[in-house]
């Protein structure tokens, strides 16, 4: 391998060298693996060697190529290698999973070297350019990204091949049936012009219908082509946007000071940019419209030609799609009726015997959840009964509670009456006892005696009474007209009492009024200390 590290300007040669090295290494390892695995040398297969032309050799290069190096390596490409492997696998195991997977891998694997090649080209330009150019690498990057955009526009059909081929396959089948070439192969404008010219030729009545149909078909074809172009245009916009994003991200990486250090990192960044662009574009109205219009136009074209084909088949007395569809629709309708009848029969069978009927009803009850509901109803009834009983008790209690005050009053009244009666009884008993104790006859005798004495008083007693009356009169006279000396004495005594009261208030609960009436008490006040000691 050339020492490119010493010659950093030679990136393109480095690229070629890398691929040559890679192919050599791969082929050597493959030989070893296959020797120990399938015992088949991939380089001895009858398929043509992808590099045969480059090497000036024909197909079927023969065996014994260990460590093979292409004699001349003008412009090798990884894609060739991947294609070759794919064909090898196809020949080995047709329809096997590895073939399918490798087919996908080979398809997508081509994008990887394409990207690397573009990067190497950028490197080459940067490193062979002037110092100014190297400093202004962003301008070089921009230029190369623009070139990449152009390249993508040219290869966009390849990039989106799976999607586009799905439509092409559908539509091509129609055209093939009509013995025509695909409407998107060859010079479309020329095809359209020729068709239009053909259709302007006057046709007999019997052919007028077909002529109109072909005109419509031509119109649908043109619509389809237009929508396909619009869709591809949107796809190019998306790819272009992804490259813009890539440019921005590379600028950011450049400023961050942490450059990408492997092809894998660059590839991942590229995918990330494509994903961001797709996420944006695919939600835009232009993409949705282009996509829907393409699908609708393709279906319109298909249905147009399918209808025509159906008519041709009818004219040839052959079965066609319309007949099959109608039959399938009838069959489906009959199936539905059959299922409905089966369900009815199943229901009727269940009802054919009492036991079955009972089982059926039981099933229905089970489905309706009646046992559970019945249990719940029973529980509810029990609860309601309990509640009713509780309510009745509550009502009784309330009534009783309402009666309690009046009963209490009655009771109090009764108690009072009883007490009164008991008191009366007691008094009665006392009276009885008193009456019992009284000597009525003796009393009567006393009363009679007294009455006799009153009616017939003793003269001596009468004299005494008069004397007493005289004494009382005398005393009364004395009280009303007292002796002045006595009065003076009394006043002196009163004065003395007042003095005592003011000097030493009495500690006794006895009032001065009573003291006045009690001379002994007056003496007590004259000796208060003695009184206290007596009390203690």
């Amino acid at each position, binding site marked *: 391998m050339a020492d490119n*590290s010493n010659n950093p300007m030679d990136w393109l040669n480095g690229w070629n*060298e*890398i691929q040559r*090295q*890679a192919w050599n*290494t*791969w082929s050597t*390892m*493959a030989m070893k*693996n296959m020797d120990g*695995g*399938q015992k088949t040398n991939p380089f001895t297969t009858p398929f043509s060697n992808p590099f045969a032309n480059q090497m000036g050799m024909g197909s079927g290069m023969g065996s014994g190529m260990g460590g093979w190096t292409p004699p001349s390596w003008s412009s090798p490409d990884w894609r060739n290698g991947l294609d070759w492997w794919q064909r090898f696998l196809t020949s*080995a*195991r047709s329809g*096997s*999973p*590895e073939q399918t*997977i*490798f087919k996908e*891998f080979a398809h*997508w*694997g081509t994008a*990887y070297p394409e990207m690397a090649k573009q990067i*190497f080209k950028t*490197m080459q330009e940067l490193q062979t350019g002037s110092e100014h150019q190297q400093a202004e*690498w962003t301008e070089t990057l921009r230029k190369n990204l623009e070139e990449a955009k152009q390249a993508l526009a040219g290869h966009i059909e390849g*990039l989106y091949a*799976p999607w586009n081929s*799905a439509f092409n396959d559908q539509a091509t089948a129609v055209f093939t049936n009509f013995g025509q070439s695909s409407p998107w192969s060859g010079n479309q404008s020329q095809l359209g012009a020729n068709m239009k010219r053909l259709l302007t030729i006057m046709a007999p009545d019997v052919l007028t219908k077909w002529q109109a149909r072909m005109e419509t078909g031509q119109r649908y074809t043109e619509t389809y082509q237009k929508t396909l172009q619009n869709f591809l245009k949107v796809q190019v916009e998306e790819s272009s946007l*992804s490259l813009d994003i890539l440019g921005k991200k590379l600028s950011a*990486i*450049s400023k961050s000071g942490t*450059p*990408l*250090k492997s*092809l894998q990192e*660059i*590839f991942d960044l*590229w*995918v990330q940019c494509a*994903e961001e*662009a*797709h996420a944006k574009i695919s939600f835009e109205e232009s993409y*949705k419209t282009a*996509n*829907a219009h393409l*699908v609708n136009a393709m*279906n319109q074209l*298909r*249905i147009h030609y399918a209808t025509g084909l159906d008519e041709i088949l009818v004219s040839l007395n052959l079965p066609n*799609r319309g007949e099959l*569809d109608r039959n*399938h*629709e009838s*069959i*489906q309708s009959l199936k*539905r009726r059959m299922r409905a009848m089966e369900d009815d029969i199943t229901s009727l069978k269940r009802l054919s015997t009492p036991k079955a009927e009972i089982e059926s009803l039981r*099933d229905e009850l*089970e489905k309706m*959840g009646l046992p559970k509901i019945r249990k719940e109803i029973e529980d509810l009834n029990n609860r309601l009964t309990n509640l009713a009983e509780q309510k009745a008790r509550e009502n009784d209690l309330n009534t009783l509670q309402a009666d309690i005050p009046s009963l209490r009053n009655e009771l109090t009244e009764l108690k009072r009456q009883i007490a009164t009666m008991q008191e009366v009884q007691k008094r009665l008993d006392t009276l009885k006892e008193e009456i019992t104790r009284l000597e009525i006859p003796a009393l009567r005798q006393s009363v009679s005696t007294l009455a006799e004495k009153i009616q017939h008083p003793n003269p001596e007693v009468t004299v005494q009474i008069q004397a007493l009356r005289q004494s009382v009169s005398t005393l009364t006279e004395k009280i009303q007209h007292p002796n002045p000396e006595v009065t003076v004495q009394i006043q002196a005594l009163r004065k003395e009492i007042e003095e005592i009261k003011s000097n030493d208030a009495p500690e006794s609960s006895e009032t001065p009024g009573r003291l006045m009436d009690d001379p002994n008490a007056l003496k007590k006040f004259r000796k208060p200390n003695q009184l206290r000691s007596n009390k203690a």
Partner: protein
Amino acid sequence: MMPFSITPEQAVREVIQFNEKLTAGLPVLGQMDNLTVGCSDREEIYREDKMVLYRFKPLVEQVHRVPILIVYALVNRPYMADLQEDRSLIRRLLEAGMDIYLIDWGYPDRADRYLTLDDYINGYVHRSVKEICQRHSLYRINVLGICQGGSFSLCYASMHPEWVRNLVLTVTPVDFQTPDNLLSSWAQQLDVDLMVDSMGNIPGDLLNLTFASMRSPLSTGQKYMGMVDIMSNAAQLANFLRMEKWVADSPDQAGEAFRQFIKDFYQKNGFVNGGIVIGDKKIDLKNITMPVLNVYATKDHLVPPASSLALKSLISSTDYSELAFNGGHIGLYVSGRAQKEIPPGIAEWIKARG
């Protein structure tokens, strides 16, 4: 400063390493025949036309009393839920004690072009539910819908609520017109009548291509370039190829069912705006009163989370739960983390509801 720092030697080394991996991996790739998918034992229970109802062999002695019927989408094949032993929603549910049934729609052909959503939902699904009920002496079972199968399950539960005990939905589109729904935005201008009338059944490859074109073509390339790194490891390569097989295994869509699905669900957004009629029954999600578990993926680019989460406000169920998975549409079934989060979550939720 230059954005690249690569010498030719470095590039050569990288390319050689790439080729070494490729060369070492090719013999391993060559031995990858008889690639099996679907790891759990199952038996056929009921068959009608191309539809087959399977029951998976329980993995525990005491299985949960009420079985689960898995309703898969018409797109791709249901073995994605049982891809391989360590990546299987079904196996994890069986291990959790669930009794699992699965509807396999088969591969519709031109004779099935006139199958309608009524045939699928009121026909195949309803008869499968009846069959399971009869086998287990039950009057209702659990239903688990996957993606479009979830939308079918919603329709079924709306029309036959008395047959559904619990409803589990996984990555199920409900609001088909959320702003981040790329498929829906593409479908709005599509003349689906023209499409079905011209194609009859819709080719599975066309659908695959549509799904693939939701991402940049280069992403697909990156996937295959990345495959080289694992090619020499037979187990890893087998995992990769199983997923590839599933992705590529896309049955055609019965024309009439496809027509109604695109029109009523994508273009008219019928779950939200109303107007869906299946057979002679109007779909009203307010009829859904049973417990509902809504499982969605936060990074789902096919069914955006907002599309699934719209369900909550549209149903009458008072027992509504959500389970979020931090991953994508497919990762919810096959990723290692999903195995630990999703099946146990579903099983616990169902067990708690009898």
